[in-house]
């Protein structure tokens, strides 16, 4: 008879468990996204912040979060977004609750020093190439320490397309005999 009681208990527990769990919401915000293995973290120079802009929380800590998609009026009006602006806006990358962080699509927070994880969400191939040292400027030593830059060091995250540059002078045409 004892085993009958155990089985009934198990049945009830398995039926009750989802209901029990469903009554509890996600307890705390997800931790910041860290590369699972230490060697995947890439050492880079400090992010290229505009002077005086960081830490963002110096203003935003006291401001109310407005998640409505809109053109910005009071501040940051100088930032023109030409980066999938049809579908994205500021808070798709900048964490609404803490502006000193960026966030991934899953909600995981990402520090600016690892913004490559954010870019890599859409530009996964570029992220793979960049980790291998094949995308982006190459500095350092070919058989030693290799210098990496953040995506943002070359690409303006709001207007990532490179501007055209003035080319250096063309070579001289072969001259007449002296």
């Amino acid at each position, binding site marked *: 008879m004892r085993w009958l009681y155990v089985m009934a208990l198990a049945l009830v527990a398995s039926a009750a468990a989802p209901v029990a769990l469903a009554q509890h919401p996600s307890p705390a915000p997800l931790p910041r996204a860290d590369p699972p293995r230490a060697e995947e973290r890439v050492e880079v120079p400090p992010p290229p912040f505009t002077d005086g802009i960081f830490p963002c929380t110096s203003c935003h800590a006291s401001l109310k979060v407005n998640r409505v998609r809109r053109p910005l009026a009071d501040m940051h009006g100088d930032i023109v977004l030409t980066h999938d602006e049809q579908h994205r806006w500021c808070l798709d990358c900048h964490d609404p609750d803490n502006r000193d962080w960026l966030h991934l699509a899953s909600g995981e927070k990402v520090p600016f020093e690892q913004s490559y994880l954010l870019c890599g969400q859409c530009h996964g191939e570029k992220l793979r*190439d960049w980790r*291998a*040292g*094949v*995308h*982006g*400027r*190459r*500095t*350092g*030593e*070919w*058989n*030693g320490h290799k210098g990496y830059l953040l995506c943002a060091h*070359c690409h303006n995250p709001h207007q990532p397309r*490179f501007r*055209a*540059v*003035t*080319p*250096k*002078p*063309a*070579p*001289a*045409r072969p*001259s007449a005999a*002296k």
Partner: protein
Amino acid sequence: MDPEKRPPPVSRRQFASVAAAAAAGFILTACGPKRLRELSRERLAALLEDLEKDYTKRFGTAVVVADTPPIEGVTFAYALDLSRCIGCRRCVYACVEENNQSRDPEVQWIRVLGMNKEKGIDFSESDPYYQPAEVPEEGHFYVPVACQQCRNAPCTKVCPTGATWTEPDGIVVIDYDWCVGCRYCMAACPYGARHFNWAEPTIPRDHLNTKTHYLGNRPRPKGVVEKCTFCIQRVRAGRYPACVEVCPVGARKFGNLLDPKSEIRYVIENKRVLVLKEELNTMPKFFYFYGT
């Protein structure tokens, strides 16, 4: 026909002249200028010291001439991302500065060819003299060309004096003191990568790169051939070539082909890679690829 008399015995005068010629030949070969590869270590050290003194006097600043040997287990290779190059020519001028190329007459080891996207890589349609206000121009792409450091180099094959050869680390080098300036190597090169010093090279003193290598960027004399050496003075010390470092869009990749974890191996194994004029079987170690 007259019956032949026995040839007359060698006279003392004849013997003396032959002996003198032999002695001169011996002295010239023993003490005179020699090819780099035949020099003993002491003579090489003396030669480098002489060169340093010479350059220092000429340019009024201390110049170092090294002869850093190749690193074991290294074969250098290069890859250039054609989807990234914007034709800005910063590599050309970084190379000129790093490698002490003559400003007048102008010598440039890198030549950037402006190509038409509609025509593809077609040398008969290339234009190295493009000078628009801004690059990249609409409908154009850019192919920088320098020495391809071929594995089956036609230039080293044809040199009559053996003044150019491939080093163990894969760099094709020139002994500027042995080259006679016949320019056969220039006719043999399918990439227009070799350049001649038609006049005495001029390097402005304040732009002189004083860290030089005997086979690389030391100031060259008039009348000899020169070309890209993958910045031998840098790469044998672990650094990247100047063009790789200066490229603002990161189009240039470089590394050790024998290191499975190098960028260059990653490019060759993962990207669509091509070489120029492949049908000529020169087997360049300079690869072009499309990163996007």
